[in-house]
């Protein structure tokens, strides 16, 4: 995906904000469905974000160093008789991407300050 350096897409901004809300609530790590649910509630949407765009954005953000990822221990998932989860964590770079620059105009939705 082509993007200007230092900018986030709307979906990426929403992911980061929702992830930080989850982190503030005590979950430093989150998985796909948890994030989609949080985003839906936070933005008051009727439907959750579709699988394709969500995972594509998560992959992209991981590639850009905004998120870190790890797979759950298969034994844990097997013990709970459910599929393995892929956990994400917002990196320091990801947190900085949402922080406003002192003295700069407030960032619009879909755009992160340089």
């Amino acid at each position: 995906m082509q993007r200007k350096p230092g900018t986030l897409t709307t979906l990426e901004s929403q992911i980061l904000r929702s992830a930080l809300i989850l982190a503030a609530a005590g979950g430093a790590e989150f998985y796909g469905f948890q994030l989609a649910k949080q985003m839906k509630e936070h933005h008051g949407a009727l439907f959750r974000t579709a699988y394709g765009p969500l995972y594509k954005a998560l992959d992209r953000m991981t590639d850009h160093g905004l998120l870190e990822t790890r797979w759950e221990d298969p034994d844990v998932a097997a013990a709970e008789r459910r599929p393995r989860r892929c956990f994400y964590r917002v990196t320091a770079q990801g947190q900085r991407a949402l922080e406003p620059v002192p003295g700069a105009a407030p960032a619009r939705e879909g755009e992160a300050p340089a």
Partner: protein
Amino acid sequence: MSAVLQGWAFSLPLVWARLYTLGLPVHERHERLERIASDVYEQRLATRRSRDLAFAILEVLVCLAGSIISDLSWRFERGHKLRVLAIRAGRTPFPVFVTVLLALAGLVGGIRLSVFHDLPGPELVAIILALLAGPLVGVLGILIARQNLVTGILALSAGSAALAVSAFPTLIAPLAAVVGAAVGLFSILETRHAYRTTPAPGRSAAPTSPYPDVPQHQLAVEAAMDAPDKLERWLSLGAILVLVGLVTTMAHDLSFPFDGTDAEIREWYAEGREAVTYGAFLGGLAGGVGLLLFFGGLYASARRAEGGTGYLSALMLASAAGAAAISMLEATLGASVGMAYAYDDEFKAGGVDTQTVRHISALGFGLLAMSAAAMAVALGALATIVLRTRQVLARWLGWATVAVAVLLLLNFPLFNMPQSLFVLWTLVVAAFRLLRPEAVPSMPRAASPAAI
């Protein structure tokens, strides 16, 4: 009923994910499927808690519909990255062969139609197409070799569509479709082949990597694709087809009275030389195919040796493809009158127009000179790679390649004699490549901490 409906709806995202991840490496496919499976499982669990089944099913379907374009785009990107990696490594010349061969088949077939059917000014159409064929295939070769497969296919389709509209509505259009389908199929096979060499994460080939930022499995793919392929060397046997082309053309040219009187030319056709005529046509076709195979194999090695942008190896392949196209056109034109005489009774009854025969003969001579010039460019590019990198061929063979390239530039004043020398060169190169395979490069090892 509701349970069945629910199960059916929640299984759809996984069915779709299984479909669009077909052809991906096992570990990558499993990761994608596991993510979707986990997501669907959690969503289904949440539905049980909320008990709002109708809305949950609707949400799943909306999610699925909203995913399709994004999923397809993700799948295309994954496949494209692998194809680029494979073509960069010069490992997979098949798409190039298939595309160029089908383009040539379409063009040669089109010219045959123009010569033998009631189109206005068939000779003129044939000449225009002859002039178009080389550049078209050449540009196509460059685009493909520069790793831009999609643009290459579009260029071919656009060129073919233009020809279809102007002259051959029944032949070229289906061929363009076949080209697209064939390239797509080979892209899938090529992607599967590249991924088959990819070990899953955790089973990487190198215990210590000199490139800590690059994933191990990606390094393993690149290392695997840097290794020479047996097929590259065996494609050198295309030189035999080139020899067949030369022999059949010579058999035709030696028997045909180029400098004879009108009566002698008419007598030659009346004697029924179908075998010689068809032989020259089929030999020309075989020679062109042989050239493409021969240079396709050479391209793989030259591209790997050249590294970097790969402009020289791309130039070599494109020039060779152009030369092959022109040679095939020359063979088709040269045999056209004889073939019409052999199977078209009306043409036979009307008698042979000796002026047209002479005109086609002169045209063929000119086309051979053009083909030789394109071949000289191909050989010049190859020689530069050989002499700069000391790979692909022996140094002495590199200098011999320079000599043949220079002589090919003089093909016209030397009455096409250097082309025989060129065929000899292909046989020598083929023997060299079959008898002296390249060494397999190994992955670079990380420097030990003590050495730093």
